[in-house]
């Protein structure tokens, strides 16, 4: 395998692995469910894209022609990740999970749960 291909594969694999690790680390580290939602939906999407990019370059080299079928998984995950995050957020709202105390605008949780229009601020 030529050196430049190896370097491309190694760099994208390392970036992918680092972002996947950061995404899972955020899952452990962040204090409440609404904040935890952010780390897998974003960091893991980029992480998986890095690994898929490496796989794409490697398979193209292996087969001898441009193999872009790994893009299917990337595309699929890019479309489904926000939907899954939205459904988990809905579930958390439905179960009346308490957010962190310092969260701003906590009164919106009840209205969001019942899918109501937010009440105007009362002074």
């Amino acid at each position, binding site marked *: 395998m030529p050196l430049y291909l190896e370097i491309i594969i190694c760099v994208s694999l390392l970036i992918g692995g680092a972002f996947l690790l950061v995404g899972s680390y955020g899952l452990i580290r962040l204090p409440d469910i609404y904040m935890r939602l952010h780390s897998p939906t974003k960091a893991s999407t980029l992480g998986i894209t890095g690994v898929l990019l490496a796989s794409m370059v490697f398979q193209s080299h292996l087969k001898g022609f441009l*193999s872009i079928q790994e893009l299917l998984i990337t595309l699929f995950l890019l479309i489904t990740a926000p939907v899954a995050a939205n459904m988990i957020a809905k579930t958390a709202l439905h179960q009346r999970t308490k957010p962190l105390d310092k969260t*701003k605008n906590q009164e919106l949780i009840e209205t969001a749960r019942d899918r*109501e229009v937010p009440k105007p601020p009362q002074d």
Partner: protein
Amino acid sequence: MKLFPMPFHSLLLFVVWLLLNNSISAGHMVLAAFFAIAIPLLVNGMRDEHPKILKPWLAIRYVLMVMKDILTANVEVALLIVGPIKKLEPGFVAVPINISSDLGITVLASTVSLTPGTVSAEVSKDKAWLYIHALHLDNEAELIESIKQRYEKPIKEIFGC
């Protein structure tokens, strides 16, 4: 009867079939063309009305812009996660939206979820408010304004609703 009642879906089926088989041989081309014509004809009667993409070039530009935003969003969120979390100030925000079609709202909500520091949580019943959760909320009005300007306006133009 039109040969391609759903042109975008036909194209998608064609490309996905070729990608799944990872081949552009003549046989797979014919099979993909058959699926691209037959499946939309079969399912055309079952679907709900969706708004058409009125401005394809703007749609492509929008997708590229979102890709760029996803990249910056990922790095930004990764830095927030490994940085000091005591300083983070999470918060909920209700964003007024002005899109009438379900498809437009779905695209907007997905884009908001994929871009910096925000996850969309719920849509109000009258489809006029989008509830989002922000990982680090320092300026509420600015966030609402940026979502409306950066994402809602092009979506409204693309779908014309």
